[in-house]
């Protein structure tokens, strides 16, 4: 099926988009399970193991419970859907309703440019560079930065419209944090862009044929990872939900599936940022034999995303939360200077190599 016309493109995008969104939403559900289970194990616990186990009878009348908890996400979903959806009296209605939606949409948007695999012949025989909803966009990285900057709205509006002090404090904290770390992240993302000489994520992945940028630019990778954690509001940067101070930050007045949508957005963004980290620094869908069997790309991407998620959860289990002023000064006085200097060094090195003064 060659894609020639606009309508075919639209159909392709719709189909792939639907599939990817479905996959990621399912992934979201099981990421919550992964988080709960792994966190439990890191803390000597077992985690949820009641919903949906496979009973295997053993001798002696007892039964072993296999895969305990694999229906837990479904149970959570059912719970969230059937909880009472409360709307406080003094909220700004329209904004209050819009905020969760505005939070989820950017998370889904970023999906569009992520290359999940190389060129897969069964789906697209010709003309496509890699498998994504919108492949071959020449401003892919900018698109990501743009959409990330949009996602502040959900937080700000949720905080403001709830008409609650906790909520607005949480919202302002969260958005200040996101804006601060966006700078460092944007500057760091430019490092792979410069190395690959393109903003197309597929080209960036292909640029890592020889060596992952992680090894070429460990500092950039570290800064990106830290900034991504801050952007996701994950531990140790999860100030907005600092339970001790703000109860739950901007989500405090939300309940039921509206609250669930904030949750959904957070976990989808976790998956997406892990995928981005893989694309920028871990060689994306590339791995052994991927040139012969492009479909392997899905497996490699999934593996790398899984690895990233595990590291995120591990970090959450290990590190205590930052204080707010520490967070801000870390972002502005440490991370930003490091990324600026690193950026400048990389730029100078690239020029020197191109001028032939330095040779590799």
């Amino acid at each position: 099926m060659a894609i020639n016309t606009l309508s075919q493109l639209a159909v392709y995008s719709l189909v792939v988009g639907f599939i990817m969104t479905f996959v990621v939403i399912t992934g979201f559900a099981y990421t919550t399970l992964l988080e709960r289970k792994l966190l439990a194990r890191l803390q000597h616990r077992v985690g949820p193991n009641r919903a949906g186990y496979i009973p295997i009878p053993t001798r002696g009348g007892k039964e072993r419970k296999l895969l305990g908890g694999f229906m837990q996400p479904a149970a959570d979903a059912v719970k969230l859907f059937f909880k009472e959806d409360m709307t406080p009296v003094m909220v700004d209605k329209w904004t209050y309703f819009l905020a969760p939606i505005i939070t989820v949409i950017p998370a889904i948007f970023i999906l569009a440019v992520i290359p999940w695999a190389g060129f897969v012949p069964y789906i697209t025989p010709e003309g496509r560079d890699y498998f994504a909803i919108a492949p071959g966009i020449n401003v892919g990285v900018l698109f990501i930065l743009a959409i990330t900057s949009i996602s502040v709205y959900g937080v700000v509006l949720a905080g403001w419209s709830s008409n609650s002090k906790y909520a607005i404090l949480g919202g302002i904290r969260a958005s200040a944090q996101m804006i601060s770390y966006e700078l460092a992240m944007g500057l760091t993302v430019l490092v792979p862009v410069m190395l690959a000489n393109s903003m197309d994520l597929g080209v960036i992945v292909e640029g890592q044929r020889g060596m992952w940028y992680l090894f070429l630019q460990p500092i950039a990778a570290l800064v990106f990872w830290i900034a991504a954690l801050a952007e996701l509001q994950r531990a140790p940067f999860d100030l907005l939900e600092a339970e001790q101070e703000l109860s739950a930050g901007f989500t405090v007045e939300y309940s039921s599936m509206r609250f669930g949508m904030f949750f959904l957005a957070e976990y989808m963004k976790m998956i997406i940022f892990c995928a981005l980290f893989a694309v920028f620094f871990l060689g994306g869908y590339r791995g052994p034999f991927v040139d012969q069997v492009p479909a392997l790309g899905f497996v490699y991407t999934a593996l790398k995303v899984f690895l990233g998620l595990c590291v995120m959860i591990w970090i959450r289990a290990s590190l205590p939360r930052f204080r707010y002023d520490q967070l801000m000064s870390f972002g502005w006085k440490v991370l930003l200077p490091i990324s600026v200097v690193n950026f400048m060094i990389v730029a100078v090195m690239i020029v020197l190599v191109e001028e032939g003064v330095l040779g590799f």
Partner: protein
Amino acid sequence: MGDPLVFGILAIVAIVAALMMVTSRNAVHSALWLVLNFATIAVFYVVLNAPFIAMVQITVYAGAIMVLFLFVIMLLGAEQLRGTGVSSRGERFHQAVAALLGVMLITAVTLALMNREGAGGGTAVPTMPITSPQELGLILFETYVFPFEVTGVLLLAAIIGVAIFTLRKKRGTAV
């Protein structure tokens, strides 16, 4: 330069958003409508084969400028004007003149467009490939490198200015 259907839908969204922005009572709602308007214009940019500018539009306008607006509105608690304020003399006159000028502007542009040679939209438009950031960057850093540096200085001046404006002395009143 775009399907008429696409243009129509986008144009209607843009105009409605602009109108709602101007007429909303609540400043936060105004800001949100303006964000919608900016997003629509960004889509226009994509339609006009300028994806880089579209992304800059979203990043800077929607992502930075409007968030700044929202911050200020929320921090000042200035969603709505308090009190009636001073009613200036000749309020009606002012409004009438403003409206008249607006109508004149649109009329003039419409008349000019209708009377233009080859009006009516049949003109052939030169095809332009989708702008790549590289091309734009080359122009920016070769032809316009001096203005580019000047904008850098401008931004620096703005940063310093803002810092001085909003700096509160430890003691005493505001500036």
